[in-house]
């Protein structure tokens, strides 16, 4: 097997030809889209557009087939047991909210506990909080150790409180930390919990195998995986999906409606109310087919190479304080310049056309724990080139000089 060719990979993405001056390192926020995805969207709207499921005509039946094929494509990629375990949502946030709402009414009872980690994105905090108080459910948090890793002995302790749900991110969007999910999920299952994985960042780092991973639910967004905006996935084991109260009521998700009562349809329709984002589903499947052409382990090695180049370069810039771990890092480096505000650093990088993000990265509680007002985040993707990392290092040096003067 030949090595990963980053320059060739980059050729699939029209954005870089359109914006040749920019170095895009905001990949944890959203990624660019390959031709294959754009062509799928365009082709659908031009030639295949129709509503799904309810049509008596062939155009609608064709659209339905395409939509259900997209579901199967995703099912195969994540190795779910059957297509009906893939529920299309508008994104990770919507998926986590469907989960939180859906479990509150069925699985969770007042006094029950939910366990999340200190590394969670707001989507995996606020979605639970919205309902916790109302339902009298308690939210526990796995703390960090001094290395900013999850404190595994505290985790074990918290499991003895018998949380009904353990919901963990696969990769920290703020620090890039890859969580030791395999063992943590197994421990959670052994303690009798329902396990949820926020895979928004994780699915970009590693192809999930949902027959291996002890995850009952797994969520991700299309736009972070080279796919369109407005589409995402809630994977769940059938028996558990069937226990979720639907968050949305409407067309398709019911079997019988009368003014006094409605009965729900079967999966997956039960959890997909209204006209779905058909083009989005097709686009996400196209992104997954695209990425399947490449070898995940080669992409991982290449990302490690980008990280190493960045790491080595940072050694020559005085005053750099790195928050991210260098081990088990999915390609995200968050740092500060000693004594400087992250917004100032990002402004000076922007001036040099380096696209990064500053602030608390939708992980305010984590930054509170770290007692840090914010940080600059560099998130690498396989279309980034070694030369871009080098330019970025130069720009950072320049920024440091200006701020120091």
């Amino acid at each position, binding site marked *: 097997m030949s090595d990963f060719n980053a320059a060739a990979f980059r050729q699939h993405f029209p954005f870089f030809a359109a914006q040749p001056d920019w170095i895009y390192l905001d990949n944890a926020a959203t990624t660019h889209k390959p031709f294959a995805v754009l062509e799928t969207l365009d082709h659908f709207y031009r030639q295949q557009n129709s509503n799904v499921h309810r*049509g*008596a005509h062939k155009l609608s039946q064709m659209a339905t087939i395409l939509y259900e094929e997209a579901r199967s494509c995703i099912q195969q990629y994540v190795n779910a047991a059957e297509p009906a375990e893939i529920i299309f949502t508008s994104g990770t946030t919507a998926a986590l909210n469907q989960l939180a709402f859906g479990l509150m009414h069925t699985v969770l009872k007042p006094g029950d506990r939910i366990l999340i980690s200190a590394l969670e994105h707001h989507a995996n905090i606020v979605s639970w909080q919205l309902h916790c108080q109302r339902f009298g459910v308690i939210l526990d948090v796995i703390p960090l150790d001094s290395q900013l890793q999850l404190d595994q002995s505290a985790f074990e302790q918290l499991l003895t409180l018998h949380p009904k749900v353990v919901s963990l991110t696969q990769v920290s969007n703020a620090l890039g930390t890859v969580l030791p999910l395999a063992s943590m999920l197994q421990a959670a299952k052994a303690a009798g919990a329902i396990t949820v994985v926020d895979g928004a960042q994780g699915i970009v780092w590693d192809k999930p195998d949902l027959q291996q991973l002890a995850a009952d639910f797994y969520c991700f967004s299309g736009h972070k995986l080279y796919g369109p905006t407005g589409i995402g996935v809630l994977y769940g084991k059938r028996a558990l999906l069937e226990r979720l109260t639907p968050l949305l009521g409407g067309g398709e998700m019911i079997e019988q409606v009368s003014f006094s009562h409605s009965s729900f349809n079967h999966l997956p329709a039960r959890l997909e109310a209204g006209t779905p984002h058909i083009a989005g589903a097709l686009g996400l499947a196209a992104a997954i087919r695209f990425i399947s052409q490449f070898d995940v382990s080669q992409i991982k090695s290449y990302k490690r190479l980008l990280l190493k180049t960045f790491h080595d370069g940072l050694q020559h810039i005085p005053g750099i304080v790195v928050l991210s771990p260098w081990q088990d890092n999915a390609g995200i480096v968050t740092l500060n310049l000693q004594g400087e505000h992250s917004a100032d650093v990002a402004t000076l990088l922007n001036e040099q056309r380096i696209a990064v993000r500053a602030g608390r990265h939708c992980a305010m509680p984590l930054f509170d724990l770290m007692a840090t007002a914010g940080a600059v985040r560099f998130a690498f993707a396989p279309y980034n080139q070694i030369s871009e990392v080098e330019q970025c290092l130069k720009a950072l040096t320049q920024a440091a000089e200006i701020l120091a003067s």
Partner: protein
Amino acid sequence: MTMEQLLSDTATALAAIRQQDLPQLQQPLDWQSKYRLLMQLGKKLPAIPEKMRQNEWLVRGCESRAWLLHYHDNTVGKHYFVLDSEARIVKGLLAIMLSFVNGLSQQELKQLDLQRAFDALNLKPYLSQSRSNGLNAMLNHIRHCLNE
């Protein structure tokens, strides 16, 4: 109307369909004639009386309502069905399907390639069109019955 009566009327109708209608369907026909034939063919199957059209026999996923009754003959290990549909064309297509599956054993039913069978009758287009409505739902339902 008893279940026995329905089963035996269905078997008789399916025999006639196999002998008379299927060979006719294989002839080159314009689409209008094909649909006329389909509807005639559906009429041959006995109607399930209103009081037997209960929710538990209703097949989900059909645009028009359809009902399926299942009978497993333990002594010979064979599966028999009675079916009905509100829609005449759907009933015709379902009748053809039933002519392939009625009286088979579980093993035989598993091996059946319905696509191929419909193809041989130049009916493949009807099959794939119906993916989202009657036919596929019915086939899934039949397979479901076997596993119970």
